Protein backbone atom coordinates (compact mmCIF):
# COMPACT_ATOMS: atom_id res chain seq x y z
CA UNK A 1 0.00 0.00 0.00
CA UNK A 2 2.76 2.34 1.03
CA UNK A 3 4.81 1.58 -2.03
CA UNK A 4 1.71 2.07 -4.17
CA UNK A 5 1.23 5.55 -2.65
CA UNK A 6 4.92 6.29 -3.20
CA UNK A 7 4.53 5.20 -6.77
CA UNK A 8 1.47 7.42 -7.27
CA UNK A 9 3.24 10.36 -5.68
CA UNK A 10 6.31 9.92 -7.75
CA UNK A 11 4.58 9.52 -11.06
CA UNK A 12 1.47 11.63 -10.49
CA UNK A 13 2.41 13.97 -13.34
CA UNK A 14 2.80 11.16 -15.75
CA UNK A 15 -0.46 9.58 -14.58
CA UNK A 16 -2.44 12.82 -14.96
CA UNK A 17 -0.81 13.35 -18.33
CA UNK A 18 -1.70 9.87 -19.51
CA UNK A 19 -5.29 10.13 -18.29
CA UNK A 20 -5.85 13.51 -19.95
CA UNK A 21 -4.07 12.39 -23.12
CA UNK A 22 -6.29 9.32 -23.10
CA UNK A 23 -9.38 11.54 -22.93
CA UNK A 24 -8.02 13.71 -25.74
CA UNK A 25 -7.32 10.69 -27.93
CA UNK A 26 -10.73 9.27 -27.17
CA UNK A 27 -12.34 12.51 -28.28
CA UNK A 28 -10.07 12.65 -31.30
CA UNK A 29 -10.90 9.14 -32.37
CA UNK A 30 -14.65 9.26 -31.76
CA UNK A 31 -15.77 12.82 -32.48
CA UNK A 32 -13.81 13.53 -35.67
CA UNK A 33 -15.18 11.90 -38.76
CA UNK A 34 -11.83 11.57 -40.51
CA UNK A 35 -9.88 10.32 -37.50
CA UNK A 36 -12.70 7.98 -36.58
CA UNK A 37 -12.61 6.44 -40.04
CA UNK A 38 -8.86 6.01 -39.88
CA UNK A 39 -9.04 4.38 -36.45
CA UNK A 40 -11.89 2.08 -37.43
CA UNK A 41 -10.07 1.10 -40.62
CA UNK A 42 -6.90 0.45 -38.68
CA UNK A 43 -8.71 -1.80 -36.21
CA UNK A 44 -10.55 -3.53 -39.02
CA UNK A 45 -7.29 -4.13 -40.88
CA UNK A 46 -5.80 -5.66 -37.75
CA UNK A 47 -8.76 -7.89 -36.90
CA UNK A 48 -9.21 -8.91 -40.52
CA UNK A 49 -5.60 -10.03 -40.55
CA UNK A 50 -6.18 -12.23 -37.51
CA UNK A 51 -9.51 -13.52 -38.78
CA UNK A 52 -7.93 -14.40 -42.09
CA UNK A 53 -5.27 -16.43 -40.28
CA UNK A 54 -7.96 -18.24 -38.29
CA UNK A 55 -10.02 -18.92 -41.40
CA UNK A 56 -6.97 -20.24 -43.22
CA UNK A 57 -6.22 -22.63 -40.40
CA UNK A 58 -9.83 -23.74 -40.19
CA UNK A 59 -10.08 -24.37 -43.89
CA UNK A 60 -6.89 -26.40 -43.68
CA UNK A 61 -8.49 -28.56 -41.02
CA UNK A 62 -11.56 -29.04 -43.21
CA UNK A 63 -9.56 -29.99 -46.27
CA UNK A 64 -10.48 -33.66 -46.12
CA UNK A 65 -14.19 -32.95 -46.25
CA UNK A 66 -13.74 -30.36 -48.97
CA UNK A 67 -11.65 -32.77 -50.98
CA UNK A 68 -14.34 -35.40 -50.78
CA UNK A 69 -16.95 -32.92 -51.94
CA UNK A 70 -14.78 -31.78 -54.79
CA UNK A 71 -14.01 -35.31 -55.87
CA UNK A 72 -17.73 -36.15 -55.88
CA UNK A 73 -18.45 -33.03 -57.88
CA UNK A 74 -15.71 -33.89 -60.34
CA UNK A 75 -17.24 -37.28 -60.89
CA UNK A 76 -20.65 -35.81 -61.52
CA UNK A 77 -19.18 -33.32 -63.96
CA UNK A 78 -17.23 -35.98 -65.79
CA UNK A 79 -20.33 -38.08 -66.10
CA UNK A 80 -22.22 -35.20 -67.60
CA UNK A 81 -19.36 -34.26 -69.95
CA UNK A 82 -19.19 -37.79 -71.22
CA UNK A 83 -22.91 -37.83 -71.79
CA UNK A 84 -22.74 -34.54 -73.68
CA UNK A 85 -19.82 -35.65 -75.82
CA UNK A 86 -21.60 -38.85 -76.79
CA UNK A 87 -24.69 -36.91 -77.70
CA UNK A 88 -22.63 -34.61 -79.89
CA UNK A 89 -21.11 -37.55 -81.67
CA UNK A 90 -24.48 -39.08 -82.17
CA UNK A 91 -25.63 -35.92 -83.90
CA UNK A 92 -22.70 -35.63 -86.22
CA UNK A 93 -21.93 -39.29 -86.81
CA UNK A 94 -25.31 -40.83 -86.49
CA UNK A 95 -24.47 -43.48 -89.08
CA UNK A 96 -21.34 -44.78 -87.45
CA UNK A 97 -22.44 -44.40 -83.85
CA UNK A 98 -25.93 -45.61 -83.24
CA UNK A 99 -25.54 -46.05 -79.53
CA UNK A 100 -27.12 -43.14 -77.72
CA UNK A 101 -25.59 -43.80 -74.40
CA UNK A 102 -22.64 -43.00 -72.30
CA UNK A 103 -19.74 -45.34 -72.69
CA UNK A 104 -17.72 -44.60 -69.58
CA UNK A 105 -18.98 -43.97 -66.11
CA UNK A 106 -16.92 -42.47 -63.33
CA UNK A 107 -17.16 -42.85 -59.60
CA UNK A 108 -14.96 -41.56 -56.80
CA UNK A 109 -13.21 -43.67 -54.23
CA UNK A 110 -10.74 -43.06 -51.46
CA UNK A 111 -7.62 -45.07 -50.87
CA UNK A 112 -7.51 -47.10 -47.70
CA UNK A 113 -4.04 -48.50 -48.25
CA UNK A 114 -1.27 -47.96 -50.70
CA UNK A 115 2.32 -48.93 -51.32
CA UNK A 116 5.00 -47.79 -53.73
CA UNK A 117 8.12 -49.51 -52.44
CA UNK A 118 7.54 -53.13 -53.44
CA UNK A 119 8.03 -54.77 -56.80
CA UNK A 120 4.36 -55.67 -57.02
CA UNK A 121 2.39 -52.85 -55.57
CA UNK A 122 -1.32 -52.93 -54.90
CA UNK A 123 -3.66 -50.42 -53.34
CA UNK A 124 -7.05 -50.76 -51.75
CA UNK A 125 -10.00 -48.43 -52.27
CA UNK A 126 -13.10 -47.99 -50.13
CA UNK A 127 -15.70 -49.11 -52.66
CA UNK A 128 -16.66 -52.58 -53.80
CA UNK A 129 -19.38 -54.59 -55.46
CA UNK A 130 -22.00 -52.78 -53.38
CA UNK A 131 -21.10 -49.64 -55.32
CA UNK A 132 -21.14 -51.43 -58.66
CA UNK A 133 -17.43 -52.00 -58.99
CA UNK A 134 -16.17 -55.12 -60.68
CA UNK A 135 -12.91 -56.64 -61.68
CA UNK A 136 -10.94 -55.04 -64.54
CA UNK A 137 -12.18 -51.53 -64.06
CA UNK A 138 -9.71 -48.75 -64.66
CA UNK A 139 -8.56 -46.38 -61.95
CA UNK A 140 -7.55 -42.82 -62.74
CA UNK A 141 -6.11 -40.32 -60.31
CA UNK A 142 -6.08 -36.61 -61.07
CA UNK A 143 -6.19 -37.17 -64.82
CA UNK A 144 -3.45 -39.80 -64.85
CA UNK A 145 -3.50 -43.58 -64.99
CA UNK A 146 -3.29 -45.22 -61.57
CA UNK A 147 -4.19 -48.91 -61.87
CA UNK A 148 -6.72 -51.63 -62.54
CA UNK A 149 -9.05 -53.39 -60.12
CA UNK A 150 -8.10 -57.02 -59.66
CA UNK A 151 -10.48 -58.11 -56.94
CA UNK A 152 -13.58 -56.80 -55.19
CA UNK A 153 -15.25 -57.50 -51.88
CA UNK A 154 -18.56 -55.96 -50.88
CA UNK A 155 -17.13 -52.67 -49.71
CA UNK A 156 -13.52 -52.72 -50.82
CA UNK A 157 -11.57 -53.32 -53.96
CA UNK A 158 -7.95 -54.19 -54.46
CA UNK A 159 -6.29 -52.67 -57.47
CA UNK A 160 -3.06 -53.48 -59.16
CA UNK A 161 -1.04 -50.31 -59.20
CA UNK A 162 0.76 -49.14 -62.31
CA UNK A 163 3.80 -49.69 -60.13
CA UNK A 164 3.57 -53.45 -60.53
CA UNK A 165 5.84 -55.59 -62.64
CA UNK A 166 2.78 -57.44 -64.02
CA UNK A 167 1.03 -54.28 -65.17
CA UNK A 168 0.83 -53.73 -68.92
CA UNK A 169 -0.81 -50.76 -70.53
CA UNK A 170 -1.37 -49.95 -74.14
CA UNK A 171 -0.12 -46.38 -74.55
CA UNK A 172 0.71 -44.09 -77.42
CA UNK A 173 2.60 -40.92 -78.16
CA UNK A 174 0.00 -38.19 -78.38
CA UNK A 175 1.71 -36.15 -81.09
CA UNK A 176 2.07 -38.89 -83.71
CA UNK A 177 -0.18 -41.73 -82.51
CA UNK A 178 2.39 -44.54 -82.47
CA UNK A 179 1.52 -46.94 -79.71
CA UNK A 180 3.48 -49.29 -77.58
CA UNK A 181 3.39 -51.13 -74.31
CA UNK A 182 3.95 -49.37 -71.01
CA UNK A 183 5.26 -51.17 -67.96
CA UNK A 184 7.11 -50.45 -64.78
CA UNK A 185 10.67 -51.59 -64.34
CA UNK A 186 10.50 -51.76 -60.55
CA UNK A 187 12.97 -48.98 -59.84
CA UNK A 188 11.66 -45.45 -59.51
CA UNK A 189 8.05 -44.89 -58.47
CA UNK A 190 7.85 -41.81 -60.71
CA UNK A 191 9.11 -43.47 -63.90
CA UNK A 192 7.84 -46.17 -66.23
CA UNK A 193 9.13 -47.63 -69.48
CA UNK A 194 7.34 -47.41 -72.82
CA UNK A 195 8.57 -50.02 -75.29
CA UNK A 196 7.60 -51.30 -78.73
CA UNK A 197 7.85 -47.92 -80.41
CA UNK A 198 9.77 -48.40 -83.68
CA UNK A 199 12.96 -46.42 -84.07
CA UNK A 200 11.99 -44.59 -87.23
CA UNK A 201 9.42 -42.66 -85.26
CA UNK A 202 10.61 -39.31 -84.00
CA UNK A 203 10.36 -39.00 -80.24
CA UNK A 204 11.28 -35.90 -78.31
CA UNK A 205 11.58 -35.15 -74.65
CA UNK A 206 8.41 -33.62 -73.28
CA UNK A 207 6.04 -35.59 -75.51
CA UNK A 208 2.83 -36.59 -73.82
CA UNK A 209 2.02 -40.28 -73.49
CA UNK A 210 -1.65 -41.25 -73.29
CA UNK A 211 -3.75 -44.40 -73.30
CA UNK A 212 -5.03 -45.86 -76.52
CA UNK A 213 -8.33 -47.33 -75.42
CA UNK A 214 -7.52 -50.64 -77.10
CA UNK A 215 -7.83 -52.63 -73.91
CA UNK A 216 -11.47 -51.71 -73.18
CA UNK A 217 -10.35 -50.94 -69.67
CA UNK A 218 -9.00 -47.42 -69.91
CA UNK A 219 -10.81 -44.78 -71.92
CA UNK A 220 -8.93 -43.34 -74.83
CA UNK A 221 -6.73 -40.32 -74.23
CA UNK A 222 -6.05 -40.52 -70.52
CA UNK A 223 -2.66 -39.00 -69.81
CA UNK A 224 0.02 -41.38 -68.59
CA UNK A 225 2.95 -39.03 -68.37
CA UNK A 226 5.63 -37.23 -70.36
CA UNK A 227 8.80 -38.45 -72.05
CA UNK A 228 11.87 -37.51 -70.06
CA UNK A 229 14.44 -39.76 -71.68
CA UNK A 230 14.78 -42.20 -74.55
CA UNK A 231 17.51 -44.51 -75.75
CA UNK A 232 18.07 -46.88 -78.64
CA UNK A 233 19.14 -50.25 -77.35
CA UNK A 234 20.29 -52.93 -79.79
CA UNK A 235 16.84 -53.81 -81.04
CA UNK A 236 14.55 -52.02 -83.48
CA UNK A 237 12.56 -50.36 -80.73
CA UNK A 238 13.05 -47.41 -78.45
CA UNK A 239 13.27 -47.68 -74.72
CA UNK A 240 11.39 -44.57 -73.60
CA UNK A 241 11.41 -43.44 -69.99
CA UNK A 242 8.15 -41.80 -69.01
CA UNK A 243 7.66 -39.51 -66.03
CA UNK A 244 4.30 -40.60 -64.68
CA UNK A 245 1.52 -38.05 -64.35
CA UNK A 246 0.32 -39.67 -61.14
CA UNK A 247 2.39 -39.26 -58.03
CA UNK A 248 1.63 -42.48 -56.22
CA UNK A 249 2.97 -41.24 -52.93
CA UNK A 250 0.31 -38.51 -52.89
CA UNK A 251 -2.57 -40.71 -54.00
CA UNK A 252 -5.68 -40.11 -51.90
CA UNK A 253 -8.71 -39.89 -54.14
CA UNK A 254 -9.16 -41.81 -57.35
CA UNK A 255 -11.78 -42.13 -60.04
CA UNK A 256 -12.94 -45.60 -60.97
CA UNK A 257 -13.93 -45.89 -64.61
CA UNK A 258 -16.54 -48.40 -65.70
CA UNK A 259 -16.80 -49.21 -69.38
CA UNK A 260 -20.41 -49.98 -70.13
CA UNK A 261 -19.66 -51.52 -73.49
CA UNK A 262 -16.87 -53.69 -72.30
CA UNK A 263 -18.85 -56.91 -72.42
CA UNK A 264 -19.99 -56.27 -75.95
CA UNK A 265 -16.46 -55.42 -76.96
CA UNK A 266 -14.75 -58.43 -75.45
CA UNK A 267 -17.36 -60.86 -76.70
CA UNK A 268 -16.99 -59.56 -80.21
CA UNK A 269 -13.25 -59.92 -79.99
CA UNK A 270 -13.61 -63.47 -78.72
CA UNK A 271 -15.76 -64.43 -81.68
CA UNK A 272 -13.03 -63.48 -84.08
CA UNK A 273 -10.26 -65.29 -82.23
Amino acid at each position, binding site marked *: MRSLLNFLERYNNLIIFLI*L*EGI*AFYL*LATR*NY*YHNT*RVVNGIRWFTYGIEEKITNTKSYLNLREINENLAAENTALRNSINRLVRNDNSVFFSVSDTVYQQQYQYTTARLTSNSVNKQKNFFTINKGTMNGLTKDMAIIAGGGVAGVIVDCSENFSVAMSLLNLDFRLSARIKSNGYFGSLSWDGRDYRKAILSDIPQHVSVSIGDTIETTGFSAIFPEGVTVGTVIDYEKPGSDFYKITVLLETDFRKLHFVDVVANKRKKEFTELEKQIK
Partner: protein
Amino acid sequence: MINSILRFGLIFILLVLLQVLMFNNIQFSGYVNPYVYIMFILLLPVEIPSWLLLLLSFGTGMIIDIFSTSPGMHSSASLMAGFVRPYVLRFISPRDGYEPGATPSMFVYGFRWFLLYTVIIVLVHHTTLFYLEVFRLTDFFRTLLRVILSTVFTSGFVLIIEFYRKGR
Protein backbone atom coordinates in the same frame (compact mmCIF):
# COMPACT_ATOMS: atom_id res chain seq x y z
CA MET B 1 -3.12 35.27 -5.75
CA ILE B 2 -6.50 36.67 -6.87
CA ASN B 3 -4.60 39.26 -8.81
CA SER B 4 -2.55 36.74 -10.73
CA ILE B 5 -5.63 34.60 -11.46
CA LEU B 6 -7.31 37.65 -12.95
CA ARG B 7 -4.18 38.53 -14.88
CA PHE B 8 -3.80 35.08 -16.40
CA GLY B 9 -7.53 34.90 -17.02
CA LEU B 10 -7.28 38.09 -19.05
CA ILE B 11 -4.24 36.82 -20.95
CA PHE B 12 -6.07 33.60 -21.63
CA ILE B 13 -9.19 35.32 -23.00
CA LEU B 14 -7.16 37.67 -25.15
CA LEU B 15 -5.03 34.88 -26.59
CA VAL B 16 -8.04 32.69 -27.31
CA LEU B 17 -9.85 35.55 -29.02
CA LEU B 18 -6.71 36.38 -31.01
CA GLN B 19 -6.36 32.77 -32.04
CA VAL B 20 -10.00 32.15 -32.89
CA LEU B 21 -10.78 35.46 -34.56
CA MET B 22 -7.51 36.08 -36.35
CA PHE B 23 -4.97 33.28 -36.56
CA ASN B 24 -7.45 30.51 -37.28
CA ASN B 25 -8.26 32.34 -40.49
CA ILE B 26 -4.67 32.49 -41.69
CA GLN B 27 -4.03 29.72 -44.17
CA PHE B 28 -0.90 30.87 -45.92
CA SER B 29 -0.43 28.42 -48.85
CA GLY B 30 -1.55 25.52 -46.67
CA TYR B 31 1.81 25.29 -44.96
CA VAL B 32 1.60 28.04 -42.36
CA ASN B 33 -0.96 27.77 -39.58
CA PRO B 34 0.22 29.74 -36.52
CA TYR B 35 -1.22 28.64 -33.20
CA VAL B 36 -0.46 31.54 -30.91
CA TYR B 37 -2.73 30.43 -28.04
CA ILE B 38 0.14 28.18 -26.95
CA MET B 39 1.68 31.36 -25.50
CA PHE B 40 -0.67 31.02 -22.52
CA ILE B 41 1.10 27.84 -21.51
CA LEU B 42 4.44 29.53 -22.03
CA LEU B 43 3.57 32.44 -19.75
CA LEU B 44 2.29 30.52 -16.70
CA PRO B 45 4.46 30.92 -13.56
CA VAL B 46 7.59 28.79 -13.37
CA GLU B 47 6.64 27.21 -10.03
CA ILE B 48 3.08 26.29 -10.95
CA PRO B 49 2.22 22.75 -9.71
CA SER B 50 2.53 20.42 -12.63
CA TRP B 51 -0.94 18.88 -12.17
CA LEU B 52 -2.43 22.38 -12.49
CA LEU B 53 -0.24 23.04 -15.51
CA LEU B 54 -1.48 19.82 -17.14
CA LEU B 55 -5.12 20.64 -16.41
CA LEU B 56 -4.75 24.19 -17.69
CA SER B 57 -3.05 23.09 -20.90
CA PHE B 58 -5.70 20.47 -21.47
CA GLY B 59 -8.44 23.05 -20.84
CA THR B 60 -6.83 25.57 -23.19
CA GLY B 61 -6.61 23.01 -25.95
CA MET B 62 -10.19 21.99 -25.30
CA ILE B 63 -11.46 25.57 -25.66
CA ILE B 64 -9.60 25.96 -28.97
CA ASP B 65 -10.98 22.59 -30.06
CA ILE B 66 -14.50 23.76 -29.36
CA PHE B 67 -13.98 26.85 -31.50
CA SER B 68 -12.30 25.01 -34.36
CA THR B 69 -14.51 21.85 -34.19
CA SER B 70 -11.65 19.40 -33.89
CA PRO B 71 -12.32 17.58 -30.58
CA GLY B 72 -9.21 16.19 -28.93
CA MET B 73 -6.66 17.47 -31.42
CA HIS B 74 -5.58 20.71 -29.74
CA SER B 75 -6.26 19.25 -26.28
CA SER B 76 -3.81 16.48 -26.89
CA ALA B 77 -1.18 18.74 -28.47
CA SER B 78 -1.25 21.44 -25.80
CA LEU B 79 -1.33 18.79 -23.09
CA MET B 80 1.88 17.48 -24.62
CA ALA B 81 3.33 20.99 -24.51
CA GLY B 82 2.28 21.35 -20.86
CA PHE B 83 3.84 18.00 -20.05
CA VAL B 84 7.25 18.87 -21.50
CA ARG B 85 7.32 22.44 -20.16
CA PRO B 86 8.85 21.61 -16.71
CA TYR B 87 11.56 19.52 -18.34
CA VAL B 88 12.33 22.28 -20.85
CA LEU B 89 12.49 24.85 -18.05
CA ARG B 90 14.89 22.64 -16.10
CA PHE B 91 16.96 21.99 -19.20
CA ILE B 92 17.48 25.67 -20.09
CA SER B 93 17.46 27.10 -16.56
CA PRO B 94 19.74 30.13 -16.02
CA ARG B 95 22.94 29.66 -14.03
CA ASP B 96 21.47 30.98 -10.76
CA GLY B 97 18.06 29.31 -11.17
CA TYR B 98 14.63 30.91 -11.26
CA GLU B 99 13.51 33.47 -8.70
CA PRO B 100 10.56 32.50 -6.49
CA GLY B 101 7.27 33.48 -8.10
CA ALA B 102 8.86 34.27 -11.46
CA THR B 103 7.09 33.95 -14.79
CA PRO B 104 9.01 33.14 -17.98
CA SER B 105 9.70 36.48 -19.57
CA MET B 106 11.90 37.88 -22.28
CA PHE B 107 12.87 40.88 -20.20
CA VAL B 108 14.00 38.95 -17.14
CA TYR B 109 15.86 36.06 -18.75
CA GLY B 110 16.89 37.60 -22.07
CA PHE B 111 15.89 37.31 -25.68
CA ARG B 112 17.95 34.16 -26.47
CA TRP B 113 16.60 32.28 -23.49
CA PHE B 114 13.02 33.16 -24.36
CA LEU B 115 13.51 32.31 -28.03
CA LEU B 116 14.90 28.87 -27.19
CA TYR B 117 12.13 28.23 -24.65
CA THR B 118 9.42 29.26 -27.14
CA VAL B 119 10.80 27.35 -30.09
CA ILE B 120 11.22 24.07 -28.18
CA ILE B 121 7.70 24.06 -26.74
CA VAL B 122 6.05 25.34 -29.91
CA LEU B 123 7.88 22.66 -31.87
CA VAL B 124 6.62 19.94 -29.52
CA HIS B 125 3.10 21.31 -29.73
CA HIS B 126 3.09 21.68 -33.51
CA THR B 127 4.64 18.29 -34.14
CA THR B 128 1.93 16.59 -32.09
CA LEU B 129 -0.79 18.74 -33.60
CA PHE B 130 0.08 18.39 -37.27
CA TYR B 131 0.79 14.69 -37.15
CA LEU B 132 -2.49 14.13 -35.29
CA GLU B 133 -4.21 16.24 -37.91
CA VAL B 134 -3.02 14.19 -40.87
CA PHE B 135 -3.10 10.98 -38.77
CA ARG B 136 -0.98 8.96 -41.15
CA LEU B 137 2.70 8.60 -41.93
CA THR B 138 2.46 8.97 -45.69
CA ASP B 139 3.48 12.49 -46.68
CA PHE B 140 5.73 12.44 -43.61
CA PHE B 141 8.09 15.10 -44.94
CA ARG B 142 5.33 17.34 -46.22
CA THR B 143 3.89 17.36 -42.71
CA LEU B 144 7.37 17.97 -41.28
CA LEU B 145 7.70 21.02 -43.53
CA ARG B 146 4.36 22.30 -42.29
CA VAL B 147 5.50 21.75 -38.69
CA ILE B 148 8.74 23.66 -39.21
CA LEU B 149 7.23 26.58 -41.13
CA SER B 150 4.35 26.96 -38.68
CA THR B 151 6.78 26.76 -35.75
CA VAL B 152 8.77 29.63 -37.24
CA PHE B 153 5.68 31.77 -37.70
CA THR B 154 4.10 30.93 -34.33
CA SER B 155 7.38 31.66 -32.52
CA GLY B 156 7.67 34.94 -34.42
CA PHE B 157 4.17 36.03 -33.39
CA VAL B 158 4.77 34.94 -29.80
CA LEU B 159 7.97 37.00 -29.67
CA ILE B 160 6.20 40.04 -31.10
CA ILE B 161 3.37 39.76 -28.59
CA GLU B 162 5.81 39.23 -25.75
CA PHE B 163 7.74 42.31 -26.85
CA TYR B 164 4.62 44.49 -26.85
CA ARG B 165 3.27 42.94 -23.64
CA LYS B 166 6.23 44.18 -21.64
CA GLY B 167 6.92 47.25 -23.69
CA ARG B 168 3.52 48.72 -22.96
